[in-house]
């Protein structure tokens, strides 16, 4: 069955373009909202698999979309939430994720130029996984302190860790790095050992583990 999606974006042209993009990717757009209150109404009415939410929306055009997204996660935990942002804002991403990285994503708006990337993120979020923008992950990895535990990682392990933080599965990491699944699994095991992380089952749990580490690192 096609994934059911609600879109919240205040610019009509972008909203229509996004709806077309998702329909072309085989998804069903069941509702379109132009502001935060409209989004909350349509999510309650349609109970979509995923709500795709622009951060800056009326009425305040500051972070109305983000606040609505956080509220949807609290009130409708079964609805996945994918936030699209103009900026790679680490704090916004962390506020959105909170203490649970399941069924949530934070992507730069310009990713919509890549249909496969956006469709993949929607599917991951719908399935209870996570999708964190590579640029946000790079920011978090880039500003770590000296003597960070991350210094213990080899370059390859850092690549794998980066893709883990983005929410990719081992299969997704293997595809992205042109490695075998077994090789990825070995890297993941070494990373968890080197960083003293508990070995978490499920991609969204390890996203949270990695984010917690990055916040402290």
């Amino acid at each position, binding site marked *: 069955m096609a994934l059911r999606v609600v879109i919240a974006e*205040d*610019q*009509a*042209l*972008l909203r*229509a*373009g*996004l709806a*077309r*993009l998702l329909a*072309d990717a085989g998804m069903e757009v069941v509702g379109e909202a132009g502001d935060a209150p409209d989004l909350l109404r349509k999510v309650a009415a349609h109970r979509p698999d995923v709500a795709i939410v622009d951060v800056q929306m009326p009425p305040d055009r500051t972070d109305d979309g983000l606040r609505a997204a956080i509220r949807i996660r609290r009130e409708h935990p079964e609805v996945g939430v994918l936030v699209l942002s103009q900026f790679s804002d680490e704090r916004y991403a962390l506020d959105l994720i909170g203490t649970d990285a399941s069924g949530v994503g934070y992507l730069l*708006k*310009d*990713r*919509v*130029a890549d249909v496969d990337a956006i469709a993949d993120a929607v599917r991951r979020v719908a399935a209870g996984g996570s999708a964190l923008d590579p640029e946000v992950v790079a920011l978090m990895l880039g500003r770590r302190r000296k003597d960070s535990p991350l210094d213990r990682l080899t370059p390859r392990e850092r690549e794998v860790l980066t893709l883990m933080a983005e929410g990719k599965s081992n299969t997704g990491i293997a595809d992205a790095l042109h490695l075998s699944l077994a090789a990825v699994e070995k890297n993941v095991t070494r990373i968890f050992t080197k960083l003293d992380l508990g070995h978490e089952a499920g991609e969204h749990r390890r996203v949270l583990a990695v984010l917690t580490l990055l916040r402290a690192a």
Partner: protein
Amino acid sequence: MGGVLIVDDSPSFRALCARLLIASGLVVAGQAADAPAALHLARTLRPAAVVLDVHLGDADGWQVAGALRALDPAPRVVLISSDADAGDDALVRRYGAHGFVPKAELDDHNLAALLGVADAE
């Protein structure tokens, strides 16, 4: 030759606008993110119409519109902006453009109509 050239510094706007125009049966001739690329592509691709953001980094979209309208053949030019005060009918006339639409009022129907490409080819 023909089709629509999309000029906007936002990759997401260009991508979604292109998708909509194609879905409306139009041809997207090309995309540009700044004024020099816009003028270069307009000269080489000779689009029938250009959708042009008023804010292009350092450049003023109205000046770019004037330069586009001086080409031979000259494309139709529709200016857009997220700032509703960035244009008016007087500016549209002065630079020989075919319309100005704030992005808040822009949708696939009025854009296609203003571009006039449906009946221009």
